[in-house]
C-alpha cells in the first residue's frame, strides 16, 4: 500500500449523487403519472382529446422509457457513484465528466421523451428512440463507464466488492446490447431502418429486450442491493462466496433467455426451447441472491424498529422472489401459450418494476438522502405511510392483472362448437374495463406514495448543503500494493 500524504484533503463527490437522486425522483413522478394517464386511457379512450401526442401509442413508450432511462438509470448512476467511491476509498475519477453525464443524461431523457410524443419511434420495444438519440446514449454510456471503471482502477483497496461487479456488468452488457440492437440505416434525421430483418430482427430485439431487463433492471439493482443492504443492516453480506457464484451464474445464464419472448413465433423451435431452458436455469442464481439478501437482513432485525427504509428493502426482496420465479414459469412454453398477449405479462412486469425496482430504490433513497445532507429524515411517519401505499398499490396492481390475464388467456383461445375462435378482440377488451379500473386505482395509490417521498426529500434537503466526506484510511492488509 502506498502511504503517500496528500496536502489537500480529498472528498467524495456526493453532490453529483444527490443531484442524480433528485432527478431520479422527478422522473419517477413524471413517468408514473404518464403510466396512470395511459391506464385511464384504456378505460376512457377519448381522454386523448383527439391529440396524437396524447394517444396511448405515444404515451406508453414515454412511460416505459421515462421509468427505465429516467428513474431507473439515474438511480443506478447515483448509487453506483456513491458506492464505487466508498468501496474503492477514492473520490470519483473525472468528476467533470460525471457532472456532464449527470445533466446530459437528463437532457437526453427529456428530449427523447419529447421525440416520442412527436411520433418518432423505431418500433422496437424499450429501444424506441431514433438514431440520433441512440448515438447520444452510446456516448453517454461510455462516459458512465469511464467514470466508473476509472474510479475502480484508482482504488486504494485491493478487492473489488461484489456490488461493483454487478454495476460493471450493467455498464458493459448494456453498451453491447444497445449498440448491436440499434444498428440501423438512417433515412432522415427522424427515421431509420434496422439493419436486421424479419425473424433475425425479432431475435436481436429480444436478446436486447430481455437482457435490458436482466442486466439493467435486475443486475444493476442487485448492485444496489449488495452495497446498500449490508450497509443499512450494519452486517456483512451473509455469504460473500455465494454472491460471487451467483454473479457468474447470473451473467452466464441470463444472456440466453431472450427467445422466450418469441414462443410459437417464426423462429427455430430449438431456439425457443433453449430460451425456455435457460430461463428455468436462471431461477438458481436469482434465488441464491434472494437467500443471501434475506439471511443478511434476518440477522439485523433490531434495525427495523428505527428505520422505515429497511422495510422497503425487505419487501423488495419478497417481490424479487416472486418476479424471478414468475418469469421462468411464464417462459415454459405450455404456460406461455396461454399467458402471452394477456395482461398477466403486464402484471409480471409490474411485480418486478413496482415491487422490486421501485421499492429497493425507495429504500436506498431513504437511506441516502438524510445521510447526504447530514440530518434525519424529515418525517418517518410519512415514510411509513409511503411503505403501506407502495405495498397496497403493488398488490392491487398484480392481482387485478392476474385476474384479467387468466380471463383473457381463456377467452382469446376459446373455441365454439364449430371449432372457430369464440370471441372477438373487441368483446374481450371491453370486458376488461373493471380490471383496468382497479389497475388505475393501484397506479394512483403507488404514485401517491411516490409524491409523499418526493415531499419528504424536499423537506429533508432544502437549504442544506451536501456533507463533505473524506475517504477513510485503508487497512494495510487490504490495500493496493
Amino acid at each position, binding site marked *: 500500500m502506498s502511504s503517500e500524504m496528500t496536502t489537500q484533503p480529498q472528498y467524495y463527490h456526493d453532490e453529483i449523487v444527490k443531484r442524480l437522486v433528485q432527478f431520479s425522483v422527478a422522473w419517477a413522478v413524471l413517468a408514473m403519472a404518464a403510466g396512470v394517464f395511459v391506464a385511464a386511457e384504456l378505460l376512457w379512450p377519448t381522454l386523448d382529446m383527439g391529440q396524437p401526442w396524447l394517444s396511448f401509442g405515444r404515451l406508453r413508450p414515454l412511460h416505459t422509457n421515462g421509468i427505465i432511462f429516467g428513474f431507473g438509470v439515474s438511480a443506478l448512476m447515483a448509487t453506483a457513484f456513491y458506492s464505487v467511491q466508498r468501496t474503492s476509498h477514492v473520490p470519483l475519477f473525472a468528476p467533470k465528466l460525471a457532472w456532464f453525464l449527470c445533466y446530459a443524461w437528463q437532457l437526453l431523457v427529456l428530449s427523447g421523451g419529447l421525440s416520442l410524443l412527436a411520433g418518432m419511434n423505431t418500433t422496437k420495444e424499450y429501444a424506441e428512440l431514433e438514431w440520433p438519440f441512440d448515438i447520444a446514449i452510446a456516448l453517454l454510456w461510455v462516459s458512465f463507464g469511464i467514470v466508473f471503471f476509472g474510479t475502480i482502477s484508482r482504488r486504494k483497496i485491493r478487492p473489488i466488492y461484489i456490488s461493483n461487479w454487478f454495476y460493471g456488468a450493467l455498464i458493459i452488457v448494456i453498451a453491447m446490447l444497445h449498440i448491436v440492437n440499434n444498428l440501423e440505416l438512417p433515412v432522415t434525421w427522424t427515421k431509420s431502418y434496422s439493419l436486421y430483418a424479419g425473424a433475425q430482427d425479432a431475435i436481436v430485439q429480444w436478446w436486447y429486450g430481455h437482457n435490458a431487463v436482466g442486466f439493467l433492471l435486475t443486475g444493476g439493482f442487485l448492485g444496489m442491493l449488495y452495497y446498500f443492504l449490508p450497509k443499512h443492516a450494519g452486517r456483512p453480506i451473509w455469504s460473500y462466496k455465494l454472491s460471487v457464484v451467483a454473479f457468474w451464474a447470473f451473467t452466464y445464464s441470463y444472456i440466453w433467455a431472450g427467445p422466450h419472448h418469441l414462443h410459437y413465433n417464426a423462429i427455430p423451435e430449438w431456439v425457443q426451447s433453449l430460451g425456455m431452458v435457460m430461463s428455468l436455469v436462471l431461477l438458481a442464481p436469482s434465488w441464491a441472491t434472494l437467500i443471501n439478501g*434475506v*439471511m443478511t*437482513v*434476518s440477522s439485523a*432485525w*433490531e*434495525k*427495523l*424498529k428505527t428505520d422505515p427504509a429497511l*422495510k422497503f428493502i*425487505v*419487501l423488495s*426482496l*419478497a*417481490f424479487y*422472489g*416472486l418476479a424471478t*420465479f*414468475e418469469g421462468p*414459469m*411464464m417462459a*415454459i412454453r*405450455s*404456460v406461455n*401459450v*396461454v*399467458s402471452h398477449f394477456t395482461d*398477466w405479462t403486464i402484471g409480471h412486469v409490474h411485480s418486478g418494476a413496482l415491487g422490486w425496482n421501485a421499492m429497493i430504490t425507495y429504500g436506498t433513497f431513504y437511506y441516502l438522502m438524510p445521510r447526504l445532507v447530514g440530518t434525519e429524515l424529515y418525517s418517518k411517519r410519512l415514510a411509513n405511510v409511503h411503505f403501506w401505499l407502495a405495498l*397496497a398499490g403493488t*398488490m*392491487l396492481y398484480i*392481482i*387485478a392483472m*392476474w*385476474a384479467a390475464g*387468466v*380471463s383473457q*388467456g*381463456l*377467452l382469446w*383461445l*376459446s*373455441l365454439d362448437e364449430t*371449432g372457430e*375462435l*369464440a*370471441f372477438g378482440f373487441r*368483446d*374481450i377488451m*371491453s*370486458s*376488461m374495463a*373493471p*380490471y383496468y379500473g*382497479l389497475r388505475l386505482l393501484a397506479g394512483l395509490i403507488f404514485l401517491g406514495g411516490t409524491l409523499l417521498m418526493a415531499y419528504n426529500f424536499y423537506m429533508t434537503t432544502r437549504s442544506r448543503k451536501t456533507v463533505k466526506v473524506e475517504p477513510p484510511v485503508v487497512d494495510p492488509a487490504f490495500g493496493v500494493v
Partner: protein
Amino acid sequence: MEEKISRYLLFRTLYEPKITFEVLAETDPSAWRVFSSYSVWLLLLPPLFSWIGAYNFGWRLGASEPLVLTPATLTLISIAYFLTLLFGFYSTAVISRWMASTYGASSSFGRHVALITIVGQPLALASVAHLFPNVFFNVVVMIPVMIWSMYLLYTGIPVALQTPPERGMLMASSLVGWLLVAAVSLLGLTMGLWAAGFGPALGV
C-alpha cells in the same frame, strides 16, 4: 388451555383477533385437534360455495355467456380446489414452523396451524362470494379481505409466536413471499393443464 383457544377460534377471531393471538401465545394446542375441529371445515367452504354457485349460475368471465359445466365436472374441480387448498394450508404451516428457528419464534406446530387458520379464516368465509361466480365480483370482494388477512399475519406472528415485532415483520414478509410464489404457481399450473387439454376447450 386448549379449551380456551377453542372458544376463540372460529368466530371470535373475526372481531377480537389480538386477544386470540394473546390467548394462542399462552397455549400449545394439538395440531391435529385444531385442524380437524376448525381448519378443515373452513377449507371445505370455498369448494362448496363454488360448486353451488357454478351449478346455479355458471362462471361469468365478462365477455362470454356464463360457462356452465356438468355436475360431474364441477365435483371434480371442487375436489381439486379442496386438495389445492389443503396442500397450501399444510405447506404454509410447515414452512412457517421451518422459518421459526431463523426468526426466534415458537416452534409449536399446533400454534402455527392455529395461526394459519386464523389468518386464512376471513378468506375462507369471504369465499361466500363464489355463490355469485362472476370473476370480477370475486376479485373485488377478495382483495380487501386479503389485505385484512395480511394484516392478521403481520400482527399475529409476533404475538402468537412470541418473537419481537421486527423479527415477526421479517418472518411475515418471508411468508408473504412464499404465498405469492404459491399463488403464481397455481396460475401457471392451471394454464399448463389447460394447454395440455384439461378443462375448457382451447385452440392450442
